[in-house]
């Protein structure tokens, strides 16, 4: 982004005039400095962000408070509202204008996102024998929806707090508001904006919010679930590292936002239940006495308590009303605000006493229609609480009064205190609802992940528009931990082995790539960084150091805005371990891990004592296979001259070339005498110990420098594991040798690199010495036909009648007597 270059130009020009590739990869020879410190890459530390990755003494961030009154027109599926924004300029700069984000404009036909949408259909006509081009019905539905509906914001007015009109300019998904007078450092100003827009049908347009229509519901015309997000014009962030973060919303790169307090009044049909960011302020006017009593009970309940039961929700969705109600919510120190509304919702809640002084009590709640069914009743709210327990251990106490999971058309999306999650049950012919194990895993997994996002990035406020991995990668790493602590039988998380096919593939970009430009988002921004952190924790730093450093990062940046450099620097500083090589390799390159064990030499210490060494040499030669020439002569009965002439013998027939004479003995004695005392001591000890020395030769085939973990098997059947830190590669990142020494009698039989598959090494075959044939998956599959674990959908299957029973019954009926 141009602006970015400008804002940071001074720093960039000072330190990066030579470009980073030059410093790493020299023109002389082929040396690559994979351990070069990230000095050209990381921004220079300043008073806002320290070199240790901590907020500096002059750290600042803006504060933006909102008072919003909005209403949902269910019939038109339209949101209308007005907001008063109080903007406090905590930066040292004077601002003449403010930039606001108009995210709904991403759906306009003339948005950059729409105009640059790649054709996703299949065109094959230019290839031989190709079929005609195809468009999917999905694409056509989307086009039709966008044609038929006016999308994007209608901004009715932008005024000062006292009502004077302000000049504004809309630029795509952004709006510049020119202030009546420049806003100096430390002062505040108010803006009043009237806005409205039509909600998108989530299933037609695929967004992070929208409505879902249920035409089959009993109520005439059906019902909707409304998920409302990116719904009010909100301030773009103004930061110390990028100034206005006004990069266009293209759909993939999520949000860069400011913290503030929200006071929001939402007017919806009177029979709707609203779930929202914030704490409900007017329970008395929107909830029945019964519902309020149930909420009270839920605070200390063992299992979730229904505030709105299934029966009540079913009754609700049959009717409808022309009345409306206004729900009033207040949220302190949040970076965004989202909500959901429907008459279809049942609602359950369970209190969580997390203790601590900041937020000792949290109410976990779930909202879902009958389509969510038992799956949601059992697991949603419990998953929310489990997430809080695990994430808080790795970061800080959950900082808000409520944590909510709402079922709607969005597969999974996070907002402060509220998440949208997609899993559903399946309606069977007998009218019951069941779910598969995969759907169950999906529900638990997605709730953990989305609730986890309330920590990262909703509280540790990383810049999603620039760096998806900072929230998705960290969060995928933590959801793997929380998942494994839920049920080890379910394969959670990302194992290093899961990512090897991605990491060795050709078409990829480094993790450190701007969010909208990432190729293959899933493995790039979720999988690979999660694996990298896993390796850092389990293999490189160990849990104690990693967990301390990670928690330090989380607490340093709680309610603040970290950048990648802050993460890298904090983990390094708090663990006390140089990790520049790790960040460089995993986050700034597309190298993969492939360390090969090419050779092993065995060495034995010469004693210099001729009486020992000469006979050893004789034994070595004897152990060699005899000359095949001599063997065949003997087989042919060919006699040698010596054999034919036994009468002639001399000294050399009795003494071979390994015979020791006093000449050698004298020379040995003078060698020993010539040693200095310490040399003689070391030498004599080495001779006595007679250890086994091995030299292992490694080559780095994948480029990524990593620790070398060795699994050693000895001829006596014993095993050992050795860990060689990655720094072994610092002077030569292509080939290295390592000397290993073992006690007398301890001889190596086999060596395996990375025996526990913890480093994401992509090639197993060259990890073995001696080489081992590693069967391909197909070879292995053919050998042990399907070792597939049988996960059964017992819920539906259990209704199957036992075949023999049916036969018995039939027989019975055939026997009248």
């Amino acid at each position, binding site marked *: 982004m141009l602006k970015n270059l400008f804002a940071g130009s001074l720093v960039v020009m000072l330190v990066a005039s030579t470009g980073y590739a030059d410093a790493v990869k020299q023109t002389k020879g082929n040396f690559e400095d994979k351990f070069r410190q990230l000095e050209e890459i990381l921004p220079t530390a300043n008073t806002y962000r320290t070199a240790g990755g901590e907020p500096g003494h002059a750290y600042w961030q803006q504060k933006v408070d909102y008072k919003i009154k909005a209403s949902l027109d269910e019939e038109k599926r339209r949101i209308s509202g007005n907001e008063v924004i109080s903007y406090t300029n905590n930066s040292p700069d004077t601002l003449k204008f403010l930039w606001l984000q108009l995210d709904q404009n991403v759906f306009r036909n003339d948005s950059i996102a729409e105009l640059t949408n790649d054709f996703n259909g299949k065109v094959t006509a230019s*290839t031989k024998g190709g079929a005609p081009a195809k468009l999917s019905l999905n694409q056509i539905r989307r086009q039709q929806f966008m044609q038929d509906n006016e999308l994007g914001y209608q901004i009715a007015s932008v005024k000062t707090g006292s009502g004077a009109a302000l000049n504004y300019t809309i630029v795509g998904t952004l709006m510049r508001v020119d202030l009546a007078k420049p806003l100096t450092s430390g002062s505040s100003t108010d803006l009043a904006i009237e806005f409205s827009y039509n909600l998108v049908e989530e299933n037609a347009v695929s967004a992070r919010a929208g409505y879902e229509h249920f035409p089959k519901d009993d109520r005439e015309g059906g019902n909707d679930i409304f998920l409302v997000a990116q719904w009010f014009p909100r301030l773009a962030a103004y930061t110390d590292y990028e100034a206005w973060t006004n990069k266009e919303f293209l759909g993939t790169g999520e949000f860069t936002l400011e913290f503030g307090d929200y006071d929001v009044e939402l007017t919806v049909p009177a029979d709707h239940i609203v779930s929202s960011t914030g704490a409900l302020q007017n329970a008395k006017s929107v909830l029945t006495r019964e519902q309020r009593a149930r909420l009270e009970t839920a605070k200390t309940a063992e299992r979730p308590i229904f505030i709105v039961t299934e029966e009540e929700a079913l009754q609700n969705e049959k009717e409808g009303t022309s009345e409306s109600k206004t729900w009033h919510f207040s949220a302190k120190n949040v970076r965004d605000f989202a909500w959901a509304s429907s008459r279809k919702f049942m609602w359950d809640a369970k209190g969580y006493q997390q203790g601590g002084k900041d937020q000792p009590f949290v109410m976990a709640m779930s909202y879902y229609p009958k389509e969510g069914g038992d799956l949601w009743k059992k697991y949603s709210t419990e998953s929310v609480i489990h997430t809080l327990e695990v994430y808080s251990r790795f970061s800080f106490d959950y900082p808000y009064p409520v944590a909510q999971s709402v079922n709607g058309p*969005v597969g999974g999306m996070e907002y402060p205190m509220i998440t949208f999650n997609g899993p559903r049950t*399946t309606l069977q012919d007998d009218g019951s609802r069941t779910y598969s194990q*995969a759907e169950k895993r999906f529900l638990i997994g997605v709730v953990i992940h989305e609730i986890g996002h309330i920590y990262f990035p909703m509280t540790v406020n990383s810049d999603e528009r620039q760096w998806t991995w900072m929230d998705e990668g960290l969060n995928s790493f933590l959801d793997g931990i929380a998942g494994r602590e839920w049920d080890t039988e379910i394969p959670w998380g990302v194992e290093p082995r899961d990512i090897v096919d991605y990491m060795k593939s050709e078409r990829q970009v480094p993790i450190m790539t701007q969010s909208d430009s990432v190729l293959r988002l899933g493995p790039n921004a979720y999988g690979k960084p999660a694996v990298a952190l896993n390796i850092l924790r389990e293999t490189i730093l160990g849990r104690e150091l990693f967990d301390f450093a990670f928690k330090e990062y989380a607490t340093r940046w709680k309610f603040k805005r970290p950048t990648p450099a802050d993460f890298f620097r904090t983990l390094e500083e708090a663990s006390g371990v140089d990790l520049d090589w790790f960040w460089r390799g995993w986050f700034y390159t597309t190298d993969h891990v492939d360390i090969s064990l090419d050779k092993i030499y065995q060495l034995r210490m010469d004693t210099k004592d001729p009486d020992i060494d000469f006979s050893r040499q004789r034994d070595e030669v004897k152990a060699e296979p005899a000359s095949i020439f001599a063997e065949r002569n003997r087989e042919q009965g060919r006699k040698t001259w010596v054999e034919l002439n036994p009468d002639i013998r001399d000294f050399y027939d009795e003494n071979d070339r390994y015979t020791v004479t006093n000449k050698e003995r004298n020379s040995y004695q003078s060698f020993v005498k010539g040693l200095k005392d310490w040399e003689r001591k070391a030498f004599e000890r080495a001779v006595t110990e007679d250890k086994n020395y091995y030299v292992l030769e490694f080559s780095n085939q994948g480029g990524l420098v990593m620790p070398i973990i060795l699994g050693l098997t000895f001829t006596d059947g014993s095993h050992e594991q050795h860990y060689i830190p990655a720094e072994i590669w610092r002077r030569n990142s292509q080939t290295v040798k390592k000397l290993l020494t073992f006690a007398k009698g301890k001889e190596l039989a086999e060596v395996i690199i990375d025996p526990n598959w913890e480093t994401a090494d992509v090639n197993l075959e060259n990890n073995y010495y001696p080489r081992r044939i590693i069967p391909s998956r*197909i070879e292995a599959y053919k050998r042990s036909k399907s*070792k597939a*674990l049988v996960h059964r959908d017992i819920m539906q299957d259990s209704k199957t009648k036992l075949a023999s029973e049916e036969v018995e019954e039939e027989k019975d009926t055939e026997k009248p007597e």
Partner: protein
Amino acid sequence: MIRPTLVVIVTLIAGAITAPVYAHSQKAAITRVLFNPRTANLEVMHRFSMHDAEHAVKQIFDGDADIISSKDTQEKFSKYVADRFSIMESDGKALVLESVGYEIEGKFFWVYQETKAPEAETLILSHNALRDLWPTQINTVNIEGKHGLRTVTFDGSEELITVNLKPND
């Protein structure tokens, strides 16, 4: 002569709903195509996340389809995959890929195919599995065992990709 305008037809996958799953951002499959020197076969190993496969089968077949516990669904899905993956030689002749089988391994569903390794060093690949369902599905194919590794990625409107396996100079 100007080629006639492309005919636009609509694929018959009505009802396919594409709810984005930001949390489990998968919709991505990876395939290893291996020239196996021990068997002289070309082995094809498709890996799908169970989560993607679970949702896909309900859309491709019907709501009762169950990739985890129904052998019938597993078989139908592996056939579905096989029907949408092809390797051709440069003359357009498709290799006949035999089905080897399929299995579940933890988070993944694997589909296996193989054929006698072709001599040709230029191959044309096509991998439309799930891409006819979800426009955002990305299929990556790593071709290994013949002069290093080559990757082709099917995303956007990519349908046929030619890959040259000759060694790099």
